[in-house]
């Protein structure tokens, strides 16, 4: 028999409000229930209200770790990408959300943690330390990250430049990155509208890219951002199937 190993929760010893914002937060029984219920509701909503179609789901890796990246034009994006994952992977998926929006007040942080299973990215002070923690989480758990390399929602619906920060997560690591393009989200729920309109959504999932051979330094990060931007743009332009 092996020696007994105890591994306390990653956020053990943190105060409740710190734990919600922690990058090492782990869902327990209650969060599992709330997130599963939320997922069922979101899937029903996306199918019913937005007639969501998913193309290329076969490109999704069977096991974590992997990263899903996409264009970002609405608050529907993260929940749509997460909803496209199979049920058994739901506990491994973490949308990376802007800390200053999704983790600012305790009530919103509670929602982001207990429903979305989101992890915060603090846009103003996102130093190498936070990126290192996220990378450890991605590889160590292993986890699935859903993130938007443009860094903010597009104000005109067009694809913006990808920021190189995401390269810090996947450079020189055996982590597939799945490019995705979500059609229709800008029309359904642009940043200046409060309530979503019943417009159709189409999620295209592309073939994963690997960056194990790319150096984990600035030039490598920029190369990764460039290649992913091209891949996402190609999904946008590919003819409908």
């Amino acid at each position, binding site marked *: *028999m092996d020696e007994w190993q105890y591994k*306390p929760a990653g956020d053990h010893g*943190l*105060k409740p409000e710190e734990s919600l914002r922690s990058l090492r937060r782990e869902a327990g*029984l209650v969060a599992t229930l709330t997130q599963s219920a939320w997922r069922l509701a979101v899937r029903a909503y996306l199918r019913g209200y937005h007639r969501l179609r998913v193309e290329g789901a076969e490109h999704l890796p069977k096991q974590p770790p992997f990263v899903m990246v996409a264009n970002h034009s609405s608050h529907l994006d993260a929940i749509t990408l997460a909803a496209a994952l199979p049920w058994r992977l739901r506990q491994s998926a973490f949308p990376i959300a802007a800390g200053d929006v999704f983790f600012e007040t305790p009530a919103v942080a509670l929602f982001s943690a207990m429903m979305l299973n989101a992890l915060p990215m603090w846009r103003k002070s996102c130093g190498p330390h936070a990126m290192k923690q996220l990378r450890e989480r991605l590889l160590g758990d292993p986890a699935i990250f859903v993130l938007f390399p443009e860094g903010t929602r597009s104000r005109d619906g067009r694809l913006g430049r990808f920021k190189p920060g995401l390269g810090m997560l996947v450079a020189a690591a055996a982590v597939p990155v799945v490019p995705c393009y979500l059609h229709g989200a800008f029309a359904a729920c642009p940043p200046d509208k409060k309530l979503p309109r019943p417009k159709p959504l189409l999620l295209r999932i592309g073939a994963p890219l690997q960056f194990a051979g790319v150096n984990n330094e600035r030039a490598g990060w920029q190369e990764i951002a460039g290649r992913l931007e091209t891949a996402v743009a190609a999904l946008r332009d590919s003819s409908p199937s």
Partner: protein
Amino acid sequence: MFGLHPVAFWISAGIVAVLALTPLIFLALERAGKLSPALRTDLWTRYKSWLFLAPLMIAPLLIHRLTAIIGVGILSLLCYREFARATGLFRHRAISAVVALGILLLTCAAADHWYGFFVALSSLTISLLVIVALFADQPQGYIQRVALGVLAFSFFGVCLGHYGYFANDKAGQAFLLAILLCVELNDVFAYCTGKLFGRRKLAPQTSPNKTIGGAIGAAILTSALFATLVHQIVDGTALDRHWHLLALGILLSLTGQFGDLVMSSIKRDLGVKDLGATIPGHGGLLDRFDSLIFVGPAMFHYIGYFLGVGLDQPVRIFTGP
């Protein structure tokens, strides 16, 4: 008085008085220049936590039998949560769900006043737990997972559950308040007498701050207090004998201190300082309530052996014929 058991009334009044007077004592100590800034902050944080904790603990006991039982059920679940997150057991959701289900059913059995089901749940929940743990089909670590689950259910379900069942007795309110008060004061007595007379360490590897002097001092003071309180509750019954009252007092003090040591052992083994961070100044709920775990069953069965628990009350209130 106010529909309360007289002993329950006086204990509650005493606690309210102590909480009201404590700030005056702090201020007096501060005037006398006996408080370092660090100690001052620590005392006030602890005091403020008690200001929330004490009503949260006492009010459910005073309001109704059912609020007391539900309160104990919630406390059990929260304590289990801390234990599961500290040991890593929470990652095994099926086992965690069975322990939570067992605690909920124990709460229902107590609320229903159905002792047969209350007892049956120990073996049934443990059987269900080891069976459900099979479904992962992962023999590696099976013993560790189910052992942690069974231990957790025994501590936080079965042992703490006795407090809930106690509320079915006519004098349950008074017994519960007396036990809570004496268990909390037991810690305080051990701390104070330990500072005054403690020379030899009690268990230096497990809990370096505890002394034999503190343990004996707490046993003497707590026994005296608890015996006095129980005497008022069981006046004129078979339990109202000096040796019974003394035995109950010593049993309460010892099981309380052992509960503390058991949780210290668990913390040392895990390599964590506190089991949570829920209560400012105290750590987790379990760091505060660890001494309660073994006191409940010991008191319940000692008192139950001589007087019975809730014998003159209606049974199977919700499920009965």
